[in-house]
């Protein structure tokens, strides 16, 4: 009877943890503020601080792999695509800024998924059959590349 009660409690606790661990927040570094600091390519999820002429549009998709729920390798990170690749593309086009930036980390791993992947490594190691779970990761970023006009 006591064992049954303990198992029920454990099941409820596990379910609670599983449901609580269904959310994840990912963050990227600062973009440019307003007014334009005048340092490098201006980046904003909003509009341009100055009159501009549109040079073009870009869509960037970064691909990476999450290994065993622990390590993220590759280019599926917000900073790398937004503050890295997007700036590079804007510079190549001769732009001064990238505006109306939209971004989406398509499948960040929730705590539950990370723990599940890590535990399969551990259980695989214990049984003598190493199992490394990998998960494809994608980040998509779009933006409008512009050149400031006037003063």
């Amino acid at each position, binding site marked *: 009877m006591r064992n049954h009660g303990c198992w029920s409690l454990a099941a409820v606790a596990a379910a609670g943890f599983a449901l609580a661990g269904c959310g994840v927040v990912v963050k990227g570094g600062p973009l440019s503020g307003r007014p334009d600091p005048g340092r490098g390519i201006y980046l904003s999820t909003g509009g341009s601080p100055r009159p501009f002429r549109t040079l073009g549009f870009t869509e960037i998709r970064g691909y*990476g792999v999450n290994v065993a729920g622990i390590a993220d390798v590759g280019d599926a990170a917000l900073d790398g695509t937004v503050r890295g690749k997007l700036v590079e593309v804007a510079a190549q086009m001769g732009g001064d800024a990238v505006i109306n930036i939209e971004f989406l980390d398509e499948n960040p791993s929730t705590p539950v998924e990370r723990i599940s992947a890590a535990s399969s490594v551990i259980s695989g190691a214990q049984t003598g059959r190493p199992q490394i779970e990998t998960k494809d990761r994608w980040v*998509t970023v779009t933006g409008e590349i512009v050149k400031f006009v006037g003063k």
Partner: protein
Amino acid sequence: MRKLVAPAVLASLFALSGCTIVNSAQLPSDRSGQQIFLTSGDIPEPYLSLGIVQGTRSGVRLAGFFDPAGTDLQTGLRDVLIPQIREMGGDGAINVRYHMTQYTPWTQVVGLIFFFIPLPTSVTVSGEVVKLRR
């Protein structure tokens, strides 16, 4: 040999894991009236909204690399959206949104090897067509 398999797999994963696909469309424009303008944001001047438009061009990639239907951003914006704006009598489009199918170089190489299996691809563009009140 077995001891080398796991590290070899890991090394391959690391080697193939980094990958960024970049697609751009070079379509210079402004609101001077000399050409159809496109912007992904709003505009500060008065305008008349003529409607919203969304266009999708679908096709296949042959041998991983060849896109005969033209489903990239440049073609989508230039050949799908801009003609539509002209047809509606607009000066341009605001709040333009766009998305195209992007395959990693690895997938494209696999597509080249299995050249008899085409890869589905498409580009979708949308926006609000406006006429400037001048």
